[in-house]
Structure formats: C-alpha cells, structure tokens
C-alpha cells in the first residue's frame, strides 16, 4: 500500500498539467465568450452579444456548415480509402503486411506543413498536375479549381487523415478471430456474405473511432484551408484565427470556439455510446 502523502505527491504533476493547460484555458475562453471589445479594448462586461452575433450574421453559419461539409467529405473519403486498405492488409497482404503497414505509417513522420506545401506545388496552375494535363493535351488552360478551393482542402485533409482512419480499423480487423470467418464459410456464407454479416459488424468500433478522428481533426483544421483553401475554402478555424489575430475580437472568437467545442464533445459522446453498443469482445 502507498501512503497518503505519496499518493498526494504523485498526483500533483498531472493535476497541475490538467489545471494549467486544460482547465484554465477553457475557463478563460468560456469567460471571454461573454465579454466584449469596445473601442479596441477588452471590457469585462457579461453579456450574450457574441452568441447573438453568431446567430444573426449568416456568414458564420455559412462557414460552419462549409466546415462540417468538408469534414464530412474528408471522413467519408478517408473511410473509403482507409477501410479497403486496412482490410487488404489484415486479410490478404500476408508476407507484405509489415512493409505495407510501415508505408502507411511513414507519412505521419513527415511534417503536416511539408505535406501541405507539397500539394500546393502539385495542384497549382503551374503545378505538376496541370503541367501533366497540358502536356497530354487533356486541357489547354490551367485547371483553376484544383488549388484554392474546398476540393483542394478535402484532398489535402483526406491525404493527411487517412492513416488516422486506417489505424483503428486495422486494429479492429486484426482482433477478429479468424475462426469466425471459417465458421461463416463453413455455414455456407460466401466471401461477400461473410464480409457484410461478420467482418463489417465486428469492425464497427474501429470504423467509428477512425471516422471520429477524421471528422474532429478536420473540423478544427486551419492549416489546409490556409495553404490550399483560398477564399472559397475558408473554414471555421480560420475565422477564429483571424478574430484572435488581426480582427482583435477575442470574445467573438471564443464564442465560436465554444460552439465548436460543444459540437465536438457531443460527437465524441455519441460515438462513444455507439462504440460500446458495437463492442462484443
């Protein structure tokens, strides 16, 4: 048994950490969202004005919906890429499994910024892709929508978050006892039937975890829209960033952050419930 003094001492660092870097910032953000900026000065005057602004000015809702649409597209696309990849690795890659696994993971070691810039050089009007299209006379003018568009943001985010989606799905698939698949075939199920009746249901917790990663991380992303989004690809985090920066409206920025936080927490709560509902091990 450990003494009370020992327990108290070892719990101080984590408590300090959580207090200083999590609770305090959230409390400050929460407080700011009810304050106001007047004549360039922050006034500690409690009111709901920021939230009223968010509700009445359609620009914010518009950007928020665009952000959610982009996050949803990224989630869907990275599931469509990550699931088959995880399935192939888990069930069919055999000897190449280790190598392929490493190849999926390696991009995670490369800086996000570098990968974002790489896409800029690929998608730009003088970029690799346009050069390629013109060289083969597919197009004569540079294709403009490739860069500085929601499309570019979705593309970059999908590229960046697919490994995050792949990992939990792969883990879930690896955990399925292979004898269940044999049992399914034994009972007369074809490979497709076995997939839909056994493999897919048993991989749902991993699928949900991966989808949550992709959606939540995309929702709060501001680098991809900054690098490749342009005006039409602006996301909510960019709005927050500018409100905290050039616009100097911390209260409104905090109010938006609170809204995003609520959406995220609600989503995490929901997926946690769903994951529990679908876990049987």
């Amino acid at each position, binding site marked *: 048994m450990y003494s009370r003094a020992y327990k108290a001492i070892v719990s101080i660092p984590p408590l300090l950490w959580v207090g200083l870097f999590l609770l305090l910032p959230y409390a400050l953000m929460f407080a700011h969202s009810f304050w106001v900026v007047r004549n360039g000065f922050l006034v500690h005057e409690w009111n709901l004005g920021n939230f009223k602004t968010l509700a009445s000015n359609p620009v914010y809702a518009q950007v928020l919906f665009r952000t959610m649409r982009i996050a949803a597209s990224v989630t869907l696309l990275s599931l469509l890429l990550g699931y088959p990849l995880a399935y192939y690795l888990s069930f069919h890659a055999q000897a190449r499994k280790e190598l392929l696994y490493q190849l999926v993971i390696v991009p995670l070691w490369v800086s996000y910024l570098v990968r974002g810039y790489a896409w800029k050089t690929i998608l730009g009007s003088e970029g690799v892709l346009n050069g390629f299209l013109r060289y083969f006379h597919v197009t004569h003018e540079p294709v403009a929508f490739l860069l500085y568009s929601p499309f570019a943001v979705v593309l970059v985010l999908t590229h960046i978050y697919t490994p995050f989606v792949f990992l939990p799905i792969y883990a879930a698939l690896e955990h399925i*006892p292979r*004898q*269940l698949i*044999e*049992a*399914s*075939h*034994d*009972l*007369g*199920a*074809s490979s497709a*039937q076995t997939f839909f*009746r*056994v493999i897919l*249901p*048993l991989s749902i917790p991993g699928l949900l975890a991966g989808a949550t990663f992709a959606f939540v991380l995309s929702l709060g992303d501001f680098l991809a829209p900054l690098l490749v989004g342009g005006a039409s690809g602006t996301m909510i985090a960019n709005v927050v960033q500018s409100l905290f920066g050039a616009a100097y409206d911390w209260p409104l920025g905090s109010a938006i952050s609170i809204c995003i936080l609520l959406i995220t927490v609600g989503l995490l709560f929901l997926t946690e419930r769903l994951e529990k509902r*679908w876990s*049987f*091990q």
Partner: protein
Amino acid sequence: MSSTAPNSAHGLARGEEVLLEVRGAAKRFGNREVLKQISLNIAPGEFLTLLGESGSGKTTLLRLIAGFEQPSAGEIWMNGARLDTLPPYQRRVNTVFQHYALFPHLSVADNVAYGLRVKKTPPSEIAGRVDSTLHMVKMQEFAAARPSKLSGGQQQRVALARALVNRPELLLLDEPLSALDANLRKRMQSELKALQREIGITFLFVTHDQEEAMALSDRIALLRNGELEQVSTPREIYAHPATAYTAQFIGQTNVLRGEVQAGLATCGSIRFSTVAGPDGPATFSLRPEKIHFRTDSAAGASFAGFKGTIRQQIYGGATELLEVDCGGGQLLRVRIPARGWLSGEHQFVFSAADAIRVRE
C-alpha cells in the same frame, strides 16, 4: 477415376455404403509433411473418431474435409462426387469448432439461424428449424442471449445447434469438448452420443483423448505423424492393437520385446508359448489387467507364470496398479482388483493368448 470400390484396408468391407472417401490425401506446409497419403472411408451414420497426439495431423485432415485447407495431393469424395475442389461454403459439411467460434455480435438464435439465412431459406421455415434445434440441445430458453453471457458448456451446445440446423450430411467436430471441465465433459460425451444416434448424422470427431474416443466412437482412426496407424472399432483396437504404438496409446499396456523360436517367446525373464507369426525378434503387448496373481487353476502350456517383486502400488478406487520388477530391471504393470497393501515377491500368471504380437 471411379467413385466406387472402397478398400477393405480402410476399415469398411467391400460393397458397403460410403459417405466420405479420402483417397491418398497428403498435406505439406512448406517442407513439413503434416499428412502422408491418408486413405479413409466413412460410412453413412457412422461415428468415426480421428485420434492422435498433437501434431499427428488429425485437425489438418478435418480441415481438408471442411475445405479450410487444400490437399497437396490426393482427393476427397463425398456421395460419389469430388469434394476437395469445392469451396467450404458449397460443401454439405458443417464444423463444430474447438473454441466454438460463435458470432459475438449475434444472439444465440441468430447464430443458429446464420447458415439458413445465408442460404436464403424462407424466414417462416427458419424460425421453426432454429427453435426445434435449440430445443434439441436444450438451449431454447437462451435464444435471445448473447454468446458472451453463456458458460462454456452452453456455448458448446449452441455451436452444435448452429451446425446441426443445416442438416449436414457430415458433421466435423474439432476437439469440441476439450475446453470443458472433466465432469461436464463426461456429461456432454453421453449427450453427444445420444444425439448422434437420434438424428443419424455422420460424425467425424477429432480428439487427443483416447478414453473419449473409446466411449463415443463406432470406429477409431489412430493417426501418428501424419499416417494412419490403425482403423478399427474401439473393442478391436484395444484387444488387438496392430502396433506397439497403438497398444500404448489406447489404454495402458506392457510392451514385451524379445525373441520367438519354435513357438516359444522369450522376453527377458518371461517365457510363453505363441503361435502368432514367424520366428525372430518380436514385440508383444500385454495389458496390465490380463496379469493375475497365481492360483492353482491357472496352469498348463496356455498359461505363463513369472515371479516378481512389487516396487510400487498405485491405488485407483476399484482397481490398483502394481509395478512389478520381474528381474533384471524388467518392469511390468499389473492391474488387480483393489485388495489392500502389498509388498515383497509374488507369483504372477497370464494367459499366453493375451500377449498380442504387434508390429514396432
């Protein structure tokens, strides 16, 4: 190639009905030869047990028949048609897995209905068949439960029901009782046997437990290092083991090694008359319970006697096992009805006909 002509060497008389025919099946994993040229016939309605130590190839043979593995050589036929070329889901064979392999996300009833659903059986028929099969294994009250809520024995029953509901022609059972505790195992053995008689489905049962094999089977196929050592009824394989390995694997025995000359066998200090086989080096199996304390009634050329000192006495309830030193370090095991503490030198006797000449 014709599908008829079952070979009597495989344990079935010529002309008898054959459900499953394994013809020279072999299986290699890399350089390792797990099964070597196995030929085996199974009659409809039979309870055949594949018995062997771990690594003997018994589970591999089962997996070849189920279709989870492909034979490296040879063929498997069922009802006069090639079986080994079909994918597992097209074989009228079902398996009860060692660790049950129930689907954790499905209820007991949905597990049992699985095979019928994937074969697009009408829902009205599914409900009735699932219900009656669950009734048969006494699990109908657990229909709505998840497998994780069931005990090992209950999961075993569900696994059995899930296979049987498909009315397979052949049911494969891969050490289905090995995960159960001893008492439950005995009870499941007798239930399994009763069930098999009742429904008349052919059972191919895999086990490493010779007692279980003896208790359940119509015939036992003993596998050793990927080869069939002997295929016989339990009584026959016990009474007339073909090899020293079989004799030692099935029940306990004394292996006597020595010489036969002019009808007289000499194995260490023990001599007895024999008619079995030619002169020369010979091996005999003599069951411990065939050796008795000498009485006056056992005399003459058909009996053999020897003197031995009791080294150990192991009490086993109704019987006890003696380890007897009959000189020169030759130890024999003798099983006698329990009769209290014994020691010192005694006279023993056995009928020469009970010393079975076996191959090495």
